[in-house]
């Protein structure tokens, strides 16, 4: 009976490519660097997609896995600030305030296998199996249920590349990316066979790491590492092809491609300058520190009117909201408008930096809106917005070559994804398909 019931159910398989922009995917497909992907997307269905606000993996993937706005799921960035002490804290999977759609599928008896999903650390129980992705600190706490841990250890499963080493050794990073992808491939094969799943998901995060450190080699054909980087993309393409074949071989789709989804959580672009927004606020008299070389926003003076958390989250230091708040609540709207106007005009060598300014009300809707930033800034390509408190200069150069972008993530699916989609739309589409 169970066998008969199993066969009648629909299945879905999602392959996530962290930080792969819509335009790049199309280009790599057209240039035959990714021939399997080209064949999949060739017949249509590829759409440009908006990432979350702000466009960082923790927020975007949390929106994907819950189908919710940040003001509902409660994840606004890799960092949060305490309203009492202004100390930074790092939200984890335990902070997610709403169930994932995997939990919801579990309520109707469906099982999920989810591998390398960012922002699911530490792993917790879910109906099926989970291997947490970035920012997972140890494999032992990244695997649910624990019975899968020995198998992952035996295959030498790597959660991520060594980003500390990557800075000094870019060729070593490429080796690391290859070996990490290989263990991801092995883990996918393992869970595909071992788990009795209705929903399968695997995320490749190496693409994001590659873009942070080696975006120039992705874009420029004359870069000495260009061929090697294209080789990595071909390996990712082979992996996508394997997943596609496996999905169809198992009779998971009634029609070809139905239930198979490719997506990215945000886009990427080349980077010219870091834009340190706290330095700009300080330079313009909105913020000051007690220390000469502050290490965090915990060291702001009581007279500080606004501060920024990564990547472009502006918080007004309003009385009642923050312990050292100095802005009267009735003055906050005018201050917010003033800041939005001035930040919109920020420029570097005559070039505007900011492309969009969203107010809290525009970007967030949900019971946790009160915790949301007052403004979210999105920059033009090339200018990476930062919430660091280091440095007095607004503009800085770093060893990073790429930066996240908001409007050019992608999704490919034969399911009815809305036109002009945003990442939070996909959970509903997938759930509706599996429940149909």
């Amino acid at each position, binding site marked *: 009976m169970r066998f008969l019931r199993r066969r009648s159910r629909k299945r879905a398989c999602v392959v996530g490519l962290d930080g792969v922009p819509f335009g790049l995917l199309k280009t790599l497909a057209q240039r035959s660097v990714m021939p399997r992907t080209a064949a999949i997307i060739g017949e249509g269905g590829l759409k440009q997609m908006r990432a979350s606000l702000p466009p960082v993996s923790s927020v975007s993937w949390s929106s994907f896995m819950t189908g919710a706005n940040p003001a509902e799921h409660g994840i606004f960035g890799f*960092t949060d600030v305490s309203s009492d002490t202004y100390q930074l804290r*790092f939200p984890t999977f335990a*902070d997610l305030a709403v169930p994932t759609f995997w*939990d919801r599928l579990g309520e109707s008896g469906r099982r999920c296998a989810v591998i390398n999903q960012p922002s699911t650390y530490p792993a917790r129980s879910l109906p099926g199996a989970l291997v947490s992705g970035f920012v997972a600190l140890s494999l032992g706490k990244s695997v649910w249920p624990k019975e899968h841990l020995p198998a992952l250890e035996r295959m030498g499963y790597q959660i991520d590349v060594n980003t*500390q080493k990557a800075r000094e050794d870019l060729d070593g990073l490429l080796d690391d990316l290859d070996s990490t992808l290989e263990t991801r491939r092995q883990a996918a094969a393992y869970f595909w066979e071992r788990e009795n799943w209705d929903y399968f998901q695997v995320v490749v995060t190496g693409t994001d790491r590659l873009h942070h450190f080696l975006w120039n080699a992705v874009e420029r054909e004359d870069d000495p590492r260009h061929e090697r980087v294209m080789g990595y993309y071909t390996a990712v393409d082979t992996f996508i092809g394997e997943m596609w074949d496996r999905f169809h071989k198992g009779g998971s789709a009634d029609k070809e491609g139905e239930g198979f989804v490719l997506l990215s959580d945000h886009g990427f672009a080349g980077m010219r300058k870091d834009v340190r927004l706290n330095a700009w606020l300080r330079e313009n008299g909105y913020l000051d520190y007690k220390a000469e070389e502050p290490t965090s926003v915990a060291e702001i003076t009581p007279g500080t009117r606004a501060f920024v958390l990564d990547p472009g989250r502006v918080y007004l230091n309003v009385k009642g909201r923050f312990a050292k708040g100095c802005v009267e609540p009735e003055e906050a709207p005018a201050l917010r408008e003033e800041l939005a106007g001035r930040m919109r005009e920020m420029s570097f060598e005559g070039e505007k930096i900011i492309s969009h300014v969203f107010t809290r009300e525009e970007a967030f809707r949900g019971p946790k809106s009160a915790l949301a930033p007052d403004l979210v800034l999105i920059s033009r390509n090339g200018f990476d917005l930062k919430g660091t408190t280091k440095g007095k200069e607004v503009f800085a150069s770093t060893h990073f070559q790429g930066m996240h972008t908001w409007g050019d993530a992608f999704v490919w699916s034969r399911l009815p994804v809305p036109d002009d989609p945003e990442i939070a739309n996909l959970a509903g589409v997938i759930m509706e398909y599996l429940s149909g």
Partner: protein
Amino acid sequence: MREFRKRSLVKAICWRALATFSTMAIVYIFTGKAALSLGVGAVEVFVKMFLYYGHERIWNLIAWGKLKHPLAHLDVNRELEPEHMEELRKRLEELGYL
């Protein structure tokens, strides 16, 4: 899982229609009186619908015997251990997120 009031209300109406028709049929079978059967049905349909709705809402408040939500056991806003905080900070810094 909790139920919304609307669901309890719709369930009450559905159940009442089914139960009242069966009660009317039974009364008619036992007494052979159509008017009595209709009268019992007319009174019962309203009285028991309210009772059923109240009964559902009270049971909805009782957790015993319900499937717990998978997130129910989670300690939301749990703080990380200090050494993990430091490691996390380092990882985020390595990717330029801090």
